[in-house]
């Protein structure tokens, strides 16, 4: 797109936000693992896609599940980007940004709220998570609360590990999970 369009498009984003037409605003953010995709609704952060996720598919999914009014609007995600940057630098141990939980329901919602409550630098097992969400036999479901977590990092599913102490799987790859746990050990 030509640079002459930058200004009209910036104004369009501002006016859309002012009129409450930005149902889903998204932006990319840098991370030590590669670019992240952040998406928020007026209620809060609704989706965070890790570097290995397909951006187009993620946006199409949000258009279908939340609203097709999906617009790139980096200024709307300044806070989210800042908090994540501080987290990767080891300066931030807790996220304060608002979360929109609308992509999670029932047991998965309870489990993910449980994940959000695991303190920085600590870990829980999948069994712990299942128990805390009210069904100790639902270990497998606790696993998918992690593996299909719409807001990884902020809802820190990397802090959920196997009972034998090994890290277990991670949507962003096992290596990323190990490095995140390592970061929190060093900075914690």
């Amino acid at each position, binding site marked *: 797109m030509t640079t002459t369009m930058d200004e*009209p498009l910036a104004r369009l984003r501002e006016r859309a936000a002012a009129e409450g037409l930005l149902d889903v605003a998204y932006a990319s953010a840098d991370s030590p693992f590669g670019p992240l995709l952040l998406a928020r609704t007026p209620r809060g952060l609704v989706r965070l896609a890790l570097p290995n996720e397909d951006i187009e598919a993620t946006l199409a999914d949000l258009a279908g599940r939340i609203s097709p009014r999906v617009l790139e609007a980096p200024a709307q995600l300044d806070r989210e980007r800042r908090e994540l940057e501080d987290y990767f630098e080891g300066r931030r141990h807790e996220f304060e940004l608002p979360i929109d939980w609308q992509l999670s329901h029932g047991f998965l919602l309870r489990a993910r709220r449980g994940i959000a409550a695991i303190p920085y630098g600590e870990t829980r097992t999948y069994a712990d998570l299942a128990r805390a969400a009210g069904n100790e036999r639902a270990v497998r479901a606790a696993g998918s609360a992690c593996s299909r977590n719409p807001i990884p990092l902020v809802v820190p599913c990397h802090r959920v590990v196997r009972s034998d102490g090994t890290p277990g799987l991670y949507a962003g790859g096992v290596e990323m999970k190990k490095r995140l746990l390592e970061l929190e050990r060093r900075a914690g």
Partner: protein
Amino acid sequence: MAELPPFQTLIDEHATEVMAVLRGAVGREGAEDAFQETFLAALRAYPSLREPHNLRGWLVTIAHRKAIDHHRARGRAPVPVESVREEAVFDPDPDDGQIWQAVAALPLKQRAAVTLRFAGDLPHEEIAAALGCSPEAARRSLHEGLKRLRKEIA
């Protein structure tokens, strides 16, 4: 109903073109405002859109309506040729600026037909639908408009 793509896709693929259509239809000065009105109207209506198969045609049709609003609000017919010529001195984009000025000087219907056809790349049937006339009348407006343009530019 087919799923609507993220609205950003429409901006990425068609914003430049819609701006070109509007520059042709209302001139460089009014185009920016008409562009905002076009995309805000599109954004408002988007979730309830039933026919997601020709999003480009949909946007260009909205742009055309906003261009008509623009002319109505100013309460006058196309810009007189004299004042357009004056603008040319200050036109920062001499490449296609000359052509668009000539287009801007056409009678409203010819101007709309020419921009929808060449900036919007719409077929005659869709131009007719946007203008609310028969395809034959649309073709005639286009023909007359082009004839004038050739004379103007030559």
